[in-house]
């Protein structure tokens, strides 16, 4: 059974590229581009990992994440937060809201894949990681 990722990202071209990269890595990928009903999508899909952009139409990624962490069913869901602002305060805000990891844009495909492999014990390709390199 492939591991499932839900990518919430409103930039269509970024979503398309990430979707391709992750599917090539063996993930099953769903995408969604609107913050206002993102929580409903998470609850419907129940992904193994959530990749969440911060600047979204409707609701910010931080607001979505805070609500998600308040739900006992999703308090432990691995969440990778993507943001176009890499300053310390954005990172701190992401971690305070409950992000498992934080990846500032622009990032490389390999960096994204490696981060997701670290987040999910069942991630495709994870056995290829040298534990000593972490």
């Amino acid at each position, binding site marked *: 059974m492939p591991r499932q990722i839900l990518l919430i990202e*409103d930039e269509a071209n970024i979503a*398309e590229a990430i979707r391709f990269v992750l599917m090539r890595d063996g993930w099953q990928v769903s995408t969604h581009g609107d913050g206002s009903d993102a929580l409903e999508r998470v609850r419907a899909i129940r992904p193994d990992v959530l990749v969440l952009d911060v600047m979204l139409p409707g609701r*910010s990624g931080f607001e979505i994440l805070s609500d998600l962490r308040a739900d006992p069913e999703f308090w432990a869901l691995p969440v990778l937060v993507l943001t176009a602002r890499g300053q310390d305060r954005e990172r701190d805000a992401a971690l305070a809201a409950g992000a498992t990891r934080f990846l500032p844009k*622009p*990032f490389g495909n390999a960096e994204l894949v490696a981060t997701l492999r670290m987040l999910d014990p069942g991630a495709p390709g994870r056995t290829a990681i040298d534990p000593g390199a972490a």
Partner: protein
Amino acid sequence: MSRSALTGTRIRERRLALKRPQTEIARAAGISAAYLNLIEYNRRRVGAELLARIALALGVPASALDEDSESGIVIALREAAAAHADSAPTPADPAGDPVVLPEADRIEEFVSRFPGWAASLAERQLRVGALERRVEALSERLTHDPFLSSALHEVLSVVTSIRSTAAILAEGDAIPADLQARFHRNIHDDSLRLSGVAGDLARYLDRAEEDAPLPVLPMDEAMAWIGRQGWHLPALEGSAAIRPEDLVEASDLHGPGRDLALGYARQAARDALQMPLEAFIAVARDEGQDPGRIAARADLPMAAVMRRLAALPEAPGLQPMGLAVCDGAGVLVFRKPLPGFALPRLGGACPLWPLYQALTEPGRPIRRVVEIAAREPRRFLTDAYCELRHPSGAEGPQLARAYMLFRPLVPGGSAAAVSPVPAGIACRICSRSPCEARREPSVLGAVAARGAAGAA
């Protein structure tokens, strides 16, 4: 150059000339050494009474520590000496102080013997101070300017897309032809978008270059201080509340910025007394943070309820609320922004805000959903209200003050179905078109137009 800055420098000079440690002078003056240190480094204002005690401890009349008796040149040279001492590490002296000022006790002699050199050095010191303030202002602008923030976000997003897509194509894996063609097209579209936003940025920065240097306004100083407290002043709450004067006295504010902060703190203290925190939070939660319902239920003035709602600490079940307050001329006199709803520092705000509608209908609560124009428009629930005041009684002028509370619209809530009022932040950084209320052209119309086209 502020009074307090000069006084602090002089206290330090005098103490170092006497080779007496901070602890000794602080003890004699009845304050902590840490507080004296803040005063000496011009980070705390010193009142007349405390200045008299410090002067006594230093064995000089208080007037000797008052900068009014100094000429501008001597004052500037004292600042230069203090700055030099701050930046030049020297071995600790026997009294335990880390630095010794360079011949600061001979400044007057230097001025009288070499007036030309002294004037030149003083002028350079003033220039350095002005440049430092400008750097601070520009740094603040880079951090908070909504256009720069939006443009930077767009640049990073497009670069991420190009980098990721280009890497896929460059890796040489077998990619279906139709997907390959689409990735090429995406890169092309992104490159056009990137060149557009780069052009917008260049034009914007060109204009900024033409503008006068940005001053650090007293209102900015006061708002920054209140913001650093989290927009809530717990020291003024409950039975252990301290005086607003003491709270502001302990801040690093001075001059008009300090006066504005003190005015806010006094008002906050009165509000805290009238609306005790725990009880008010409970009522706010019960009434869905609706200021009109809270005011009616508790028989409180609407404006006071709005101020109190904006000044609440984070609490379960409460949304953070922004607050804009303007006077009768429409000038913003209080600004608590929220993500997605910035409040302009300079120039006028969007005339379509319900805040300004309230000015035309004093005494009537106005509730509207507002959609703020941006690359990704966001909706906010706003409550606006204008109160009329007569501070000098019937013979004096009538003054208007309008309040607008705002918070992100909750999806699916009762207000979500309401047609929003289309608005923006300020004309210069708003792309909404056509707009009958526009007072000046926008510099980022192209950015938003591209964003809208991309979303479609």
